[in-house]
């Protein structure tokens, strides 16, 4: 009986602690999908000007700072979900919380549509083609329950449906930063821990290798 108790306690520990609430309040139900389809990039552009998005994200969604995310050309649904998660503090960022706090859902969708319509950054020409990294990208590692990156993020890294973001064309620094956040539990707005499970199983070296595969070339400092 004692062993059974130990087993059950062990099982209880595996379940995330109660009261944590959902990792994101966004659900891609019919109403949300309809709203995203009807989002207006022109209104989004005006909002982006007003909100001074370009201070960090550049004029067209490509940042100057390699620690920032490049939002140009990501899917409307992904961008919308992140904005909503920042607003509801399911993804933690002071600045993003401040700029999204006052916006309603339609405005978030409009913003998302505007940045989604911009030209995405390209991955570096001399990207990391280490076979071990390619193995992770296209095959994953079943023993460690690591899914192939390409299965959700697309074979070209341009992103998948709904909440699966594009990876290609991000700064390597940002990719390392956000994957480390997932690994250490500092970012947890991936519904059902789908990314956390993978990031926890990846080593730091693997995260860097993957970032060098998907990452864009870092522009040289201007003279």
């Amino acid at each position: 009986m004692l062993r059974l108790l130990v087993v059950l306690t062990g099982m209880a520990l595996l379940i995330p602690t109660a009261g944590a609430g959902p990792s994101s309040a966004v659900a891609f139900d019919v109403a949300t999908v309809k709203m995203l389809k009807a989002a207006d990039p022109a209104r989004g552009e005006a909002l982006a000007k007003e909100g001074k998005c370009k201070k960090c994200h550049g004029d067209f969604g490509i940042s100057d700072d390699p620690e920032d995310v490049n939002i140009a050309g990501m899917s409307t649904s992904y961008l919308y979900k992140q904005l909503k998660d920042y607003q509801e503090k399911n993804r933690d960022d002071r600045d993003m919380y401040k700029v999204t706090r006052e916006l309603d859902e339609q405005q978030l969708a409009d913003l998302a549509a505007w940045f989604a319509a911009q030209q995405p950054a390209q991955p570096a020409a001399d990207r990391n083609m280490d076979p071990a990294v390619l193995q992770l990208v296209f095959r994953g590692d079943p023993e460690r329950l690591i899914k192939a990156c390409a299965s959700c993020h697309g074979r070209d890294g341009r992103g998948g449906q709904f909440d699966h973001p594009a990876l290609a064309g991000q700064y390597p620094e940002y990719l390392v930063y956000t994957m480390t956040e997932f690994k250490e539990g500092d970012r947890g707005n991936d519904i059902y821990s789908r990314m956390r499970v993978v990031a926890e199983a990846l080593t730091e070296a693997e995260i860097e290798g993957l970032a060098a595969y998907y990452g864009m070339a870092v522009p040289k400092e201007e003279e």
Partner: protein
Amino acid sequence: MSLDPLRTICEDPLERKWVWLSLIMAFVMGGLLGFYALSSNIHPPSNVETIDSSRLHLSEEFAEDNLGVKRNDDGSLTVTLVAARYGFYPPRIEVPVDTPVTFRIASADVLHGVHVPFTNMATMIVPGYISEVTTTFPRTGEFSLLCNEYCGLGHDSMWSRLVVVPESAGGESS
């Protein structure tokens, strides 16, 4: 035999015999299945319960902090799982051997299936419905939960782990 309707599509008499044999077998077995299903009132497996798959993580039962293994009052176990591209969540579950386990599984996106090789645990997970299946695992060890309905690019890496651990009952009391 000259009236054989298969004659128009098949010349060889031996081949026609085999075609007839397979047709008759298929009809006999289909008839038997139908007879048993009707005479003993057998329905498709498990219960029919609907759920909104697109809002699964906001539901009560399939909320993220309600997943996993739970013990019921009668000593049986309930395992609440979500199948989502591409995995079963939580990705690792542990259950005791020789204990009735009821799986309640829902899909967060498309059609999935679940199958645990070397056991009789298998069911389809249809979006919009809750799949329920009860089984008992007679052997300890590490097993895999596999998806057996093609669900997209990552279907072949859609698997997670089930560990069947020894239970004290039947062994020495400790």
